[in-house]
């Protein structure tokens, strides 16, 4: 496909209208008003607070289309006054808006019909949009619904946007024009201090990319236009000529509270579609992991297969349940992908197979690290075959992932890294190839695997190459679930308990990758734990006396993964960290009802104040008893913390160092770099 330019079509503007010219949807939680002339959303109000989130201040955009054209250049043009063809109230809480004969920037009429059904149900405003493209042009994206003038809540604090990503809830001021993508998070929270607007892509199957877009803008061709913040959801749907599609519904809801209240809305919707995957028993109990890398693309062959048993023995000696084994495959970590053959420089297939069997016989599970996203460009397999399944851009050029650097100055200077092509998961032939490689992992007999980088496809979003088994472009993330299902089916034939774990899988992907591995820092938000109190979430520990991160792991019910020397050492290389980690796991086993089996409530339901830097979390047991984990984040000083727990029962406290619980009145002296667990009897 030769694409020489883009152009936008139909940005319809409306001047402010009197209320008589509005059509409204309203209940006690939300009010939405549409201009009856243009169909633009001109007001969006929170029914329970004075927040008018969208208040068009002169001009409003009902929608925007971005179209492929072989002739035209990208030139964004707003047009004055364009009439909607129809606005119809279907029922008391549902209206239909329809725009026909859209006009592009060249003032040319296009045979495109956009129909939006807007429904308000108990405070949830849902937009269902159908696009009939009877033109010869591809519609690249449809920006709808469109808030032309996003306002701050009355308390005046700047709005931030929050979304799920990599085990946390990153937050960014909307004045910085952040972008949130549905591949990472099916929703975003537009958060004020104690209220927010929840916006959801109401389709968890990744049909296409939806961008949540914030833009600070004024009309480029009007000097009188005020600067304002626009917010719109951009459906990158690639509507082919002479085709009709219904876009993923978009839901907007106001909530009162902080991010917990917003995520509660997501949790409620998630409960309607999320398929809880099967989990083996061992991962459901208190457990810990070690990560070990044994080879890299620099062919260091550091730990032969026959030496691995010494690492397993250290796990046995220290009560560690699993080894995430990295670099076991041909060309080591980040070399040779997607091949999952063994590395002869490390030993034979039989030696690796036998080690896995021996280790697992002694209750140390082996989790084999692998990646199926990429094709190593240095490998003959790529040159001979895999290039056929790579993703290319609209110009026919392949997308690449830049590779990763290992050990030698040459690699660390980025000179000879193994760069990779991005494989097209929408191509059923590649999914079969990936499955065959995955079956090599299954044949080795491990109890699970960890798909590193399962959470992304580098810079590639769509594949435009033809002959991939579908009419391009194909949304690569849309292939994630089908491929995962195929891999799961292959595993189930061998071992239904085979654990699928991945590096920070998106929540929608956790249906197939229920065990997530990621890294945290002091600012990480335990949102995944809040969404699913029992999800196995494995977190890196790499410091030589890493009490801080171990305390956060205790606080957030994460699983410890020991990674001495950036996962290139022995467990016993950092005895201080190991000893404290063992104490934490012992405490969690002893008080499992409170610290492992209970519902994680983050900071909800209690308040902790202290005379130093501290953090805390609340757990709620099945019987309604509560536990608090309070962490002293101070490096060198003890703190006194005071708990405010509504209607407390009898309280006891234990610490990793002093696990025998003793009564407490809710005032705690916690030494530096330590934690206390308060439990309600």
């Amino acid at each position, binding site marked *: 496909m030769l694409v020489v330019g883009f152009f936008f079509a139909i940005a319809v503007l409306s001047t402010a209208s009197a209320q008589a010219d509005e059509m409204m949807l309203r209940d006690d939680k939300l009010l939405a008003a549409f201009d009856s002339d243009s169909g633009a959303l001109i007001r969006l109000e929170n029914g329970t607070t004075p927040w008018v989130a969208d208040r068009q201040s002169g001009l409003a955009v009902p929608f925007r289309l971005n179209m492929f054209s072989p002739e035209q250049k990208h030139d964004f043009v707003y047009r004055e006054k364009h009439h909607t063809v129809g606005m119809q109230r279907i029922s008391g809480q549902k209206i239909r808006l329809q725009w026909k004969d859209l006009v592009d920037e060249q003032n040319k009429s296009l045979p495109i019909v956009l129909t939006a059904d807007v429904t308000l149900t108990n405070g949830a405003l849902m937009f269902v949009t159908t696009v009939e493209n009877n033109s010869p042009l591809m519609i690249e994206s449809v920006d709808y619904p469109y808030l032309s003038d996003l306002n701050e809540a009355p308390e005046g604090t700047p709005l931030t946007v929050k979304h799920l990503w990599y085990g946390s809830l990153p937050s960014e001021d909307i004045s910085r024009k952040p972008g949130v993508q549905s591949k990472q998070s099916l929703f975003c929270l537009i958060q004020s201090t104690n209220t927010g607007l929840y916006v959801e892509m109401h389709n968890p199957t990744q049909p296409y990319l939806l961008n949540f877009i914030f833009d600070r803008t004024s009309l480029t061709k009007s000097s009188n236009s005020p600067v304002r913040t626009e917010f719109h959801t951009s459906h990158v749907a690639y509507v082919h000529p002479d085709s009709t599609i219904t876009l993923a519904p978009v839901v907007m809801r106001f909530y009162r509270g902080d991010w917990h209240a917003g995520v509660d809305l997501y949790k409620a919707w998630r409960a309607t579609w999320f398929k809880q995957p099967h989990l083996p028993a061992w991962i459901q109990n208190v457990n810990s992991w070690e990560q070990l890398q044994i080879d890299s693309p620099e062919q260091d062959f550091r730990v032969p297969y026959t030496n691995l048993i010494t690492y397993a023995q250290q796990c046995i000696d220290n009560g560690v349940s699993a080894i995430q084994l990295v670099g076991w495959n041909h060309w080591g970590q980040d070399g040779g992908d997607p091949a999952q053959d063994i590395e002869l420089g490390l030993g034979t297939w039989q030696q690796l197979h036998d080690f896995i069997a021996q280790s697992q016989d002694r209750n140390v599970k082996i989790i084999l690290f692998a990646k199926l996203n990429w094709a190593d460009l240095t490998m003959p397999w790529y040159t001979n075959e895999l290039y056929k399944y790579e993703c290319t851009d609209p110009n026919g050029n392949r997308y690449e992932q830049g590779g990763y*650097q290992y050990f030698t100055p040459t*690699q660390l200077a980025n000179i000879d890294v193994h760069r990779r092509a991005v494989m097209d998961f929408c191509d059923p032939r590649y999914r079969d190839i990936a499955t065959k490689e995955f079956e090599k992992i299954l044949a080795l007999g491990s109890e699970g695997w960890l798909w590193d980088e399962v959470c992304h496809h580098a810079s590639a979003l769509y594949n435009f190459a033809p002959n991939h088994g579908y009419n391009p472009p194909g949304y690569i993330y849309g292939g994630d679930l089908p491929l995962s299902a195929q891999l799961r089916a292959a595993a189930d034939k061998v071992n239904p308990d085979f654990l699928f774990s991945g590096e920070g899988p998106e929540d929608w992907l956790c249906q197939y990758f229920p065990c997530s591995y990621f890294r945290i820092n002091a600012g990480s938000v335990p949102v995944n734990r809040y969404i699913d109190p029992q999800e196995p979430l494995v977190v890196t520990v790499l410091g030589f006396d890493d009490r*801080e991160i171990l305390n956060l792991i205790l606080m957030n019910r994460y699983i410890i993964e020991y990674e001495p020397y950036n996962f290139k050492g022995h467990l016993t290389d950092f005895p201080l960290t190991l000893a404290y980690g063992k104490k934490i796991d012992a405490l969690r086993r002893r008080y499992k009802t409170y610290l492992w089996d209970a519902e994680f409530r983050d900071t909800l339901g209690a308040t902790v104040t202290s005379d130093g830097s501290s953090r805390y979390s609340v757990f709620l047991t099945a019987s309604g008893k509560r536990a608090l984990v309070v962490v002293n984040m101070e490096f060198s000083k003890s703190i006194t913390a005071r708990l405010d727990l509504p209607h407390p029962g009898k309280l006891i406290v234990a610490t990793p160092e002093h696990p025998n619980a003793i009564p407490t009145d809710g005032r705690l002296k916690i030494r530096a770099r330590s934690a206390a667990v308060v439990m309600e009897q």
Partner: protein
Amino acid sequence: MDVITRERKHFKPRMLPRVTRFLSTSLVLGALCIAGTAVQPAFARDVTLEDHVVLIAFDSHSGALTRFDDKATHWEVERRPKLGDSFRLFAPLPNRRWNPVLGSKQTATAVKKLSDHEILLQWKNLVSENGGVLPLTLTADVTLTNGVLTFDAILENDSSLMVETIDYPYFGDISPPSRQSTNMAVWTMPHTNSDILVSDEIYSHFHNEKGYWGVFWPTKIFEASRSPFCLIQAPGKGIYVGVGGVSSAYRLQYTFEQHPGLMSSITEMVPPADEISGIPVHLEFRMCHLIFQKPHSVMKLAPVVVRCYQGDQHTGSDLLKH
């Protein structure tokens, strides 16, 4: 900077006046020293250069840099001889890339004080990790003139392998003036021909800036192509490391590694003691030359200048002008 790469059969002495003197001296001394050094214990005897400003010492057996004192400010920069090191190079094999040559595993064939201000070190027939003994000779010349140390080196590659990189000089134990109270930072120029300096803390916190998957230790690497010097700055004093103030024919990097790692990935604190769990805590600094030296050739490395100063980073950066 003169870089000399040649096929041995085309060697022309007129190209290398200083190298020739350097090599001929070292060959003689090397022959004299081999037998005696082979049986000596490590750190048997330091060979020292000293003036009123600095003291630097090398182990006569291994050639490792074992001591470096800023006498003027009483800063023991390199103070634990056991952590001293000499050099490191990488010579990939045809069928295996991982083939380092570790200076710590070599025996010097010469560690000789040529004068009050010059030491010659030489290592021959280097033992590589996976390729056996390689016919490589590294000859280093360290001079001290009015407090200015200059590290010259020549690598003779008589092997059939390409030597991709060599780290030299190699400080194994850059210590802060005090473990308890001192912060240290590296100051470099982020842009060529700019007066702007930027700092990067190396003590008491150290943020790893390379991918954790590909390093053992927290690592920072700064490009000499952007900054002809880097300053290891402690309060009121510092160390200037420069590449002679002239452009190099190859890429040079200032590399820092914090061993064995950090206390905590949350705080990024360096363990505030000489050891943690019995493992030495030390900061390595080395100059990495990405030379890609062809087989059967000789190469003179870019000279590296090291000097101490009193003052802040502006004092340090002013040394470039001198």
